[in-house]
């Protein structure tokens, strides 16, 4: 794992796609690792009782995966400064969450990457991540 340098990141550069298979294990283990014990994230019956078709990813995990998507590409020393996400359709267990992204801007040493995470129902999360490189 190597961290990119400022001159390796160009506006318009496209990030490699990251696809995550949302097994029930992924949904449940991430919900618990983010200390979110709401039933809709681990209890299929509970989720259905509330009108969902299955358990689904919690927001804290969505934020974490967006962050991971950018640092997987930019490298471990990239300093994440902010994540703005618009939340869309639920990411249900059994679905596949695919991230895509591109470098949107570079100003005063801070890069902005546009990120989109899609599932079969549409956009699960879309927004931007701001970071700096050492």
């Amino acid at each position: 794992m190597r961290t990119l340098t400022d001159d390796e990141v160009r506006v318009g550069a496209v990030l490699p796609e990251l696809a995550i298979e949302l097994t029930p294990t992924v949904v449940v283990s991430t919900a618990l690792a983010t200390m979110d014990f709401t039933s809709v994230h681990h209890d299929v019956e509970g989720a259905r009782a509330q009108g969902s078709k299955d358990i689904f990813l919690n927001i804290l995990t969505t934020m974490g995966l967006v962050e991971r998507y950018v640092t997987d590409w930019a490298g471990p020393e990239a300093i994440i400064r902010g994540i703005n996400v618009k939340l869309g359709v639920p990411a249900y267990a059994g679905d596949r969450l695919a991230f895509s992204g591109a470098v949107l801007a570079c100003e005063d040493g801070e890069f902005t990457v546009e990120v989109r995470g899609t599932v079969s129902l549409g956009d699960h999360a879309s927004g931007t991540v701001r970071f700096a490189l050492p």
Partner: protein
Amino acid sequence: MTAPAEPTGLHERLTALAERQIAAGEVLGAAAADPVNAPMIRHWTDALGDANPIYTDPEAAAAGVHGQIVAPPAMIQVWTMPGVRRDRRQAGTPVDAVLAMLDGNGYTGVVATNCEQTYHRYLRLGESPVPATRFTGLAGPKRTALGEGYFVTWNVTWYVAGEAVAEMLFRVLKFRPRERAREPRGNGAPPAREDTPATGENGAGGNGSAARRDAPATDEDVSAADGDTPARRPYPLRPAVNADTAFFWEGAAQGELRIQKCADCGELRHPPGPVCPSCRSAARTYLTASGEGEVYSYVVHHNPPVPGLGTPFVVAVVELPEGVRIVGNVVDCAPSRVGIGMPVRLTYRQMDDELILPMWAPREA
């Protein structure tokens, strides 16, 4: 100009409440239960598949820009999540009252729409962030793909020893679930997601604040968000079902009023608990009550509004011939007719597709 009177009044009350809550400013929540620590970081990176060594590998971290292990910035909210028994640490935030007023006026649906986090610096092992929540905005009513609703926005700042280390803006849409909810999925692309954390911990709460969805203010986490809702609107309040009370709710679903009974000394007890207060035995069973009773005491509830219930309604303590007292609504009868000593009989109400509640109706002589 020509809007119906009732919604106009509600909008004015909501706006006035929102202004008061904004004026209330920042309200501190409970500090993280555990300081930033390696085990929670490792569980998080393991579950999310994040292999960045600066979070977990002391040598790699020491050699890097931080000089030591740091927490993933997106974990900021995790440190102040309230845990499973969330009632212990509920401090309340200025957001709760606004959500409660919306709930009480039919805006029972909730979906999170925006989460924006800014990280001023990475957190180090041993630091204990403290969240502080500000109510920052109410916008609406707006027509959305999910129904008419209000956007509710609040901000959380996390402090370590007085230094702001991270901030979050969180926005949810509180909407009136449509009565006929079967809409084709993906049609019109509802802009939102059904999630709880929105309101509870994640949002207002994550900061040790109250309204986690199944707790006080609300529970409709998910009501109608993805267009796949049950035909019947979910009743917004749910009983606390646990190892001690499950038998009671299973009974209610089958039309039985079950009273816990000590399996050793035979003493009846209600509400149910783990240990017999008389002989301290943990062995328990139950009996099925006859379904008759007498009003021992009661109140007529007029205000505040309760999600899912019309006012006024009667809450009574009913004394059973079996020897215990139980709390329940008295229905099928005007509140003015209810009195102490009134004979009642058990009845049931199907609150939604899932929930059946035992209640009490007048027993004619």
